[in-house]
């Protein structure tokens, strides 16, 4: 049942609004609303009960193993939330004078320094609001770099076929054409194809390394050479940074521009789809173009760097310069890991992925790249199961929910048929991983004996399988008073 369906005219959580609210003066009648907006009219207990109960219909890291590939669903320390919510931080107006912001600015400055050190880049800006915006920012800086050199011919961005969809989308948002580079059979970029593709039209290449197929591209130095020789820049998609944190630095691999997903590698909350934070790091030659604001230390204090200080900046990415509350959480997490904890994240994320991969392989599941080490994630393909039992990767995914496991990423990357991209993260126990293997084996057995049971999954969730086709064909995107009469009996 929607909160709207619980609404009754005149009902209210009346402690929550100012009690004296005079009729507004000075607003011309023709600008005044004629009909009051139909928001839910409910009591405080109804709200608390409704959203508490709804929450219980979610899987989450705090309740379930959530091995969603490419999303790094690791434990979000609870203390990060309580510290970012301290009144001094939470109640500060973005335009308050810097004298009333030295605390938050110290944290942001320190975070810039930590991110520089761990990625090997020359400078960092925390401005982008999420990973995809970090990509947009990064590509915009590549564009600004070429334009500043008067190099207007570079119209193409090279992107491996396995790349995240955000890569081509971000390139296009910066006016580039996205040109696909194939992945070789071993999971590495096809170097010869790359060599054939580069030229004076090449603005750069966007790479995830380890890549989305879950392996570290061993030819990264050669790739960097090819692209750099062609005058292009290397963009590092930081979605998989957790796999190499403290082990190898994008800057040392030759990347010119990177973004980091703090809600992945630095464990800020995923929040049901954000907010994230997508800081960008750059090599020295791209540094002038970083977005503002940035924080600079000056004497004993800190100040904002704005357009006035950084005339070549690509500009602002959001109104007030970034998701500060998320950056604070990432800062707390980074300080708790410390210098010795950075590599440990990569160590155990990789150990867990390789262990889970080995166990699934030993259980008879087919790996997409059996000859390779897993990075922090890996791919299995269920094409055999799909063909033999008619049970697809999607069916496995839905049936896993019944076993108490969130499904891995399905059907991505696109180049592996019937694939599951599995990322266990470092914060899961061996017992969790073993439980997942047992569930996979049980589902395969069920696929052999009673495939319809798997195809009809899930069976134990708040809803059976949802009709996505209907959702797109009969668009129902908002409650309306009319709808309430038709099907108000909701859940």
């Amino acid at each position, binding site marked *: 049942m929607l*909160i709207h369906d619980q609404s009754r005219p005149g009902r209210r959580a009346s402690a929550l*609004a100012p009690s004296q609210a005079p009729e507004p003066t000075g607003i011309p009648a023709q600008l005044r609303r004629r009909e009051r907006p139909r928001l839910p009219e409910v009591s405080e207990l109804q709200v608390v009960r409704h959203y*508490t109960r709804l929450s219980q219909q979610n899987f989450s890291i705090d309740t379930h193993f959530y091995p969603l590939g490419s999303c790094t669903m690791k434990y979000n320390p609870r203390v990060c939330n309580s510290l970012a919510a301290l009144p001094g931080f939470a109640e500060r107006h973005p335009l308050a004078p810097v004298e009333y912001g030295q605390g938050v600015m110290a944290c942001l400055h320190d975070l810039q320094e930590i991110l520089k050190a761990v990625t090997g880049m020359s400078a960092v800006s925390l401005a982008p609001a999420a990973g995809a915006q970090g990509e947009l920012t990064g590509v915009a800086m590549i564009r600004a770099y070429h334009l500043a050199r008067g190099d207007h011919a570079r119209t193409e961005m090279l992107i491996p076929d396995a790349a995240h969809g955000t890569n081509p989308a971000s390139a296009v948002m910066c006016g580039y054409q996205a040109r696909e580079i194939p992945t070789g059979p071993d999971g590495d970029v096809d170097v010869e194809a790359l060599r054939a593709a580069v030229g004076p039209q090449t603005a750069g290449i966007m790479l995830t390394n380890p890549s989305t197929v879950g392996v570290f591209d061993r030819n990264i130095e050669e790739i960097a050479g090819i692209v750099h020789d062609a005058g292009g820049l290397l963009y590092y998609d930081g979605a998989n940074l957790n796999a190499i944190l403290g082990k190898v630095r994008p800057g040392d691999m030759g990347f010119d521009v990177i973004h980091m997903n703090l809600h992945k590698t630095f464990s800020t909350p995923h*929040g049901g789809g954000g907010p994230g934070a997508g800081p960008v790091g750059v090599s020295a030659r791209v540094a002038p173009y970083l977005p503002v604001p940035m924080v600079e230390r000056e004497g004993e204090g800190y100040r904002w760097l704005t357009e006035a200080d950084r005339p070549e900046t690509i500009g602002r990415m959001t*109104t007030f310069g970034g998701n500060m509350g998320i950056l604070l959480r990432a800062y707390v997490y980074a300080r708790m890991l*410390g210098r010795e904890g950075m590599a440990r994240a990569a160590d155990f994320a990789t150990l867990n992925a390789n262990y889970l991969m080995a166990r699934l392989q030993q259980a008879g599941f087919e790996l997409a790249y059996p000859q390779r080490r897993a990075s922090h994630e890996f791919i299995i393909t269920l094409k055999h199961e799909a063909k033999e039992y008619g049970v697809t990767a999607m069916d496995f995914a839905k049936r896993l929910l019944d076993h108490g496991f969130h499904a891995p990423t399905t059907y991505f990357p696109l180049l592996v048929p019937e694939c599951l991209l599995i990322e266990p993260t470092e914060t899961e126990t061996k017992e969790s991983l073993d439980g997942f293997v047992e569930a996979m084996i049980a589902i395969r057995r069920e696929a052999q004996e009673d495939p319809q049971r798997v195809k009809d999954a899930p069976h134990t969730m708040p809803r059976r399988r949802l009709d996505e086709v209907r959702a797109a064909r009969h*668009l129902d995107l908002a409650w309306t008073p009319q709808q309430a009469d038709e099907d108000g009996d909701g859940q």
Partner: protein
Amino acid sequence: MPFIPHTDDDIAAMLQTIGAPSIEALFDEIPAALRSGERDEIPPALSEQAITRLMRLRAQGDEQPSCFIGAGAYDHYIPAAVWQIATRGEYYSAYTPYQAEASQGTLQVLYEFQSMMTALTALDASNTSLYDGATALAEALLMAVRANRRCKSKRVLIPRALHPFYRRTVRTIVEPQGLELIEVDFDAASGQTPVERCAALAGDQGLAAVVINQPNFFGVLEAVDALTDWAHEQGALAVAVVNPLALALLTPPGEWGAAGADIACGEAQPFGMPLSSGGPYAGFLCSKQALVRQMPGRIVGRTLDADGKPGFTLTLQAREQHIRRSKATSNICTNQGLMVTAATIHLALLGTEGLEQVARTCHANTARLCDQLCALPGVERAFSGAVFHEQALRLPQAPNTVLERLASEADLLGGCALGEHYPELDDMLLVCATEQRTEEEMQRYATALATILNAA
């Protein structure tokens, strides 16, 4: 090892299963020359207790005096229930609801958010958020240009009385895609954006979209009906940028002019989001039904499950980057889900009447404060246009000096000096007194300003 559950026995057993001699060996595909060690620049690990001590110290230093700054971010009261519920692990630590059956909580919240935003804007459809108000406007303009097939140009009219940071952010994001942003100035007397000035800039190639800001950066109310009708006459889409709290009282964009604005967007921060130095907030974007397939971002639809029970799922994903890749409506992926969860709870707690009362109280507080301040010699309302809950004042002394003295002498942040963004308005201060400001604080402001101005 904070957050790492592995025991020595676990590690040994796992390596044996893998057939690797050590964890280090798992990294043997990385060229040795590239490997890095610990970085001394990164400080050593702190315990939770130690980082708590450090952060509390830093936060204490940032505690703020009474705030009369608005300018795009507003100090509203947030009921305790909002974040106690929004930070429940099931919301806080879930991700984008790709597996609908295991994410009905988040999905229903998002559908309810969409329903609340369409109710407020009187439009048909809403997405589940963009990063913030400024990026929502950037996406709205890209959307408008895609959708407006009648117009061949990518020219967009944008008021100079729009928030300066919105204008700069929009520029960063849309110019690489070839959009041409044409700024139309406001009337110095009224603070409004006159239709005539728009007309003068319309040009030959036509306009893809016209941005209409209600209220504008100065708090001034625009003649939205006339602007919307004029935009439509030009064959442009009307893109509304609105403070959603104002919609408790003001005509919703869907009812502007004869046909209504086509798209409405803005900053949802007033709905339960702490100021937090500027973020995370949440941008919202609503549109008419006809434009929904050009909408950026996640959209949730209500559908049926295999048993015929209603349920919720992400829909229209064919617009999105993970399906359409380079042909997506936007690259956006992660948005501001948790903030939207808070906003939905916040709006449910306030309800229609509560939201109206907050809007009315803010409006009345600012009016009362400005009455007191304008009683001082040399202080006057800067613009003649009607305002909502925010007011530009002309001061007889340099606003920055006044602000510094108000802070040090009366422990209050007196507003936003306009000169930095509008050189010709260098004698002006933008003030806002939300429902959080008390009589005592407003009186303190008036008394302190009187002292400062007399002492000059």
